[in-house]
């Protein structure tokens, strides 16, 4: 098959604490060596039979996503990946939900040094994402400036749900968006079901099953995107690009319709929106495809894309090595034109992430 750009490949820890310890500033190591710290993720949900594809694990149970060599064999070479955007372990996003800001910053920096040392620069196909700790936006901005010097860093990645203090579009996070914008990176928002200093992922409390939580993946994404679009974030940061990662996209057309409808009716309440909200979305936002929507009739995905008002919103992603991995060859249904398939598989991501 022709080359594919995969926007969501998880390069994962073998063991979070052991992996980042060498990169952690010495002042902080006692939290691990003496403090019994085990990791950032506070997972309210267990996934029956695990979160990974069983066929990606080594015989001894280690993850195939925990080494470059196994990732290359299992995924990059297997599917003819032209470029892969590494998104890290989802658990590392939970630094944003910790209560101790400086500890969170230290963990984020160590995670980024692990990524840059162990994953980037080994393979021209791999580009990387860095994490920051939102508790301290100015420190996060400095960390972004630091890591952006690595030419293979293309994205700053966040959990979709903003911490309990309020939406990602809040002014408190301005230093972060300013840093993302000035370094010409993408701000990626990836689903994360962790707990900590963060509200439930729905307005009806905590789901009671992983099934329910996962089916509602669009809810936090819609909340954050509404805030970005209504509060003028893309006007104040005209160079900011936002990638919605693993949040679904089937919910997006009706959100755009409602936004544009209200702009016709209620524009006066948000007078800084000088153009339709959907136009700002088109310029600043894209979506990764996995887990791809499965309409009742598979061919109807083409209709859904039409309803989005642009065929340039979607960027293929596999979510290797997770259980609901989308095959680069088989996940796009029939009914899409060759042109749209090409955009999803390569062009949209190549443009958005400024790849060669």
């Amino acid at each position, binding site marked *: 098959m022709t080359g594919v750009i995969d926007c969501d490949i998880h390069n994962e820890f073998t063991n979070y604490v052991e992996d980042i310890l060498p990169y952690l500033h010495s002042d902080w190591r006692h939290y691990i060596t003496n403090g019994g710290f085990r990791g950032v993720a506070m997972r309210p949900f267990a996934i029956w*039979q695990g979160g990974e*594809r*069983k*066929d990606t694990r080594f015989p001894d149970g280690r993850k195939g996503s925990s080494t470059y060599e196994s990732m290359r064999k299992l995924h990059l070479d297997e599917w003819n990946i032209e470029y892969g955007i590494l998104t890290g372990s989802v658990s590392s996003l939970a630094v944003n939900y910790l209560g101790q800001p400086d500890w969170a910053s230290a963990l984020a920096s160590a995670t980024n040094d692990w990524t840059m040392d162990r994953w980037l620069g080994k393979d021209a196909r791999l580009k990387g994402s860095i994490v920051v700790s939102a508790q301290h936006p100015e420190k996060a901005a400095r960390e972004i400036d630091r890591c952006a010097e690595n030419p293979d860093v293309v994205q700053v990645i966040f959990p979709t749900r903003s911490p309990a203090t309020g939406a990602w579009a809040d002014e408190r996070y301005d230093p972060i968006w300013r840093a993302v914008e000035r370094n010409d990176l993408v701000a990626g928002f990836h689903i994360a079901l962790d707990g900590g200093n963060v509200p439930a992922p729905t307005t009806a409390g905590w789901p009671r099953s992983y099934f329910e939580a996962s089916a509602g993946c669009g809810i936090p994404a819609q909340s954050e995107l509404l805030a970005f679009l209504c509060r003028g974030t893309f006007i104040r940061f005209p160079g900011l690009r936002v990638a919605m990662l693993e949040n679904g996209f089937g919910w997006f057309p009706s959100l755009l319709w409602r936004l544009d409808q209200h702009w016709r009716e209620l524009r006066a309440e948000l007078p800084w929106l000088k153009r339709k909200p959907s136009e700002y979305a088109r310029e600043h936002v894209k979506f990764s495809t996995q887990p791809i929507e499965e309409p009742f009739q598979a061919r109807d995905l083409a209709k859904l894309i039409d309803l989005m008002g642009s065929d340039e919103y979607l960027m293929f992603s596999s979510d290797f090595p997770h*259980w*609901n*991995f989308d*095959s680069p*060859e*088989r996940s796009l249904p029939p009914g899409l034109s060759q042109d749209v398939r090409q955009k999803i598989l390569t062009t949209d991501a190549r443009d958005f992430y400024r790849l060669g």
Partner: protein
Amino acid sequence: MGQRLCSEDEIPVGEMKVFQVGRREVAVARIASDRFHAFRNRCPHQGAPLGRGYLSGTFMPSDVGVYEWGREREIVRCPWHRYEFDAKTGRSLHDPQGCRVASYRVEVHDGFVELTD
């Protein structure tokens, strides 16, 4: 005489193994000491290798809030999207008519598992 795949000792009870047979990949599940079932090693959803997934029981349809485990070692679960298939018939649990994999006969002769389809 069928196509000999392996000695029966090579597949422990409760496990699956995959074989290349001509152009087909065939998965064999041993659901009991004397019961082997074979099926196409390709999930109808996105083509995942079913034989490299899970062989187990499942929670049976039940009343709300009730969990009843059943069909131990009879359910093949795809390693990707976790679709469940009856190891004996190849039919999916969620759509037995519309979503299924080809099921093949295997028999044991002289301690060897043979594909007879």
